[in-house]
């Protein structure tokens, strides 16, 4: 059998997805047996022009991580889409925007002012902001255009599969790679994980009656072991999050923050969790309800930590 051709790329991301790909360990050798890696900026020295020179659909599969927040990333997403038979959104940034997507609470101007002017560690007396083009004695220098709004890969190009997670667990990565190598990929559009049901389905902590009178932030309490964290008043989002990760976070006393994205069939993870949370708040008294809710300082950052660009409203309205 001819070897597969695989490309891996990064856009607006933290680099964690590359670590997750390397974390599959000796399975990388199995991948290398079955596939030639033709492009992978973190590990091999291939240039953009090498990709440009490849014939259309000559790459069998591209694992694309990172959201789309500038023109270079958009250009590469479109080029790799043309060159690849299968486009896989790898990790939460490509899938739903993830942490870089929280920038959609602001716009370009606000971000530039904060990053290049206001931060305490910035020394920029002339208030110089990044320009797409600038003249220097040697000629013109260019930079990609920074967009107002972060987009997901699916909002940019046609995507065939998703591998969820921030970053994806090793077993999730391998589930997809093995299916690719063996030619047994599921139907187009599948979000590949071991469990399409909620994280709670994988979680061994004991649930009783979900009713809470007070919401805590992680540093406010040391949770009881073996009891569901949501029932202890922590914002554990296992109930609204796709399983398959094996629920490592609640088992380490950390509430699930939702990195595997929404459960199958749900279009807005934040609204889904908000709904579930409101249902377990144990009060019918308007003032008490308000007091309980007041203990959530940042609903958007908590409920849409990984999915703001992919949510129904996409981000905040800036006036």
């Amino acid at each position: 059998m001819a070897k597969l051709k695989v490309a891996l790329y990064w856009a607006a991301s933290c680099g964690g997805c590359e670590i997750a790909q390397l974390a599959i360990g000796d399975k990388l050798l199995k991948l290398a047996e079955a596939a030639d890696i033709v492009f992978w900026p973190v590990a091999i020295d291939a240039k953009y022009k090498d990709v440009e020179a490849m014939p259309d659909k000559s790459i069998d599969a591209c694992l694309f991580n990172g959201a789309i927040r500038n023109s270079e990333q958009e250009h590469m997403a479109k080029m790799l889409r043309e060159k690849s038979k299968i486009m896989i959104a790898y990790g939460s940034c490509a899938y739903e925007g993830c942490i870089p997507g929280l920038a959609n609470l602001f716009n370009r101007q606000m971000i530039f002012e904060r990053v290049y002017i206001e931060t305490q560690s910035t020394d920029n007396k002339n208030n110089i902001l990044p320009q797409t083009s600038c003249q220097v004695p040697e000629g013109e220098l260019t930079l990609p255009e920074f967009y107002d709004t972060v987009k997901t890969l699916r909002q940019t190009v046609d995507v065939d599969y998703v591998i969820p997670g921030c970053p994806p667990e090793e077993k999730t990565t391998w589930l997809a790679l093995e299916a690719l190598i063996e030619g047994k990929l599921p139907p187009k559009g599948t979000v590949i994980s071991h469990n399409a049901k909620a994280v709670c389905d994988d979680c061994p902590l004991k649930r009783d009656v979900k009713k809470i009178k007070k919401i805590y932030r992680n540093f406010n309490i040391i949770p009881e072991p073996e009891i569901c964290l949501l029932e202890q008043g922590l914002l554990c989002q296992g109930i609204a999050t796709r399983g398959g990760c094996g629920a490592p976070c609640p088992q380490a006393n950390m509430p699930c923050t939702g990195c595997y994205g929404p459960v199958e069939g749900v279009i807005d993870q934040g609204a889904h969790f908000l709904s579930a949370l409101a249902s377990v708040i144990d009060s019918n008294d308007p003032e008490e309800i308000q007091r309980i809710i007041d203990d959530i300082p940042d609903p958007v950052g908590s409920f849409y930590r990984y999915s703001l660009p992919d949510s129904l409203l996409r981000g905040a309205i800036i006036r």
Partner: protein
Amino acid sequence: MSFEPKIIAFLCNWCSYRGADLAGTSRMKCAPNVRPIRVMCSGRVEPLLILKAFEAGADGVLILGCHPGDCHYLEGNYKTLRRVDLLKKMLSQLGIEDERLRLEWVSASEGERFVSITDKMTEQVRKLGPFPRRNGGNNG
């Protein structure tokens, strides 16, 4: 031309829809901007439906249910109260004005109350203008 807001109203079957019906059969005059959707209970109106309504072009969303203590399913309206409070907090973070989402209680006999709530909300949302959209579609 002046802006005419579209307001999606979720009315619970047992009280508020009948209240609206009473307003109709009594021939009360009422702003025509409200598009009623009958649901079995206000508790059926998940936050996702509210966001979906905004995304699909609603300028305001109104939820009407039975008065506290009167819900046909006992506690559906309390659940709605908690959801709407939390959703409002989140929407304010997203820059959506408070007046665009409203939860009120209207009983089967309160045709007039239905009219005054819908008229007032129509007026408020008309002043706000169309539902604002994140310019996510075209980047730049």
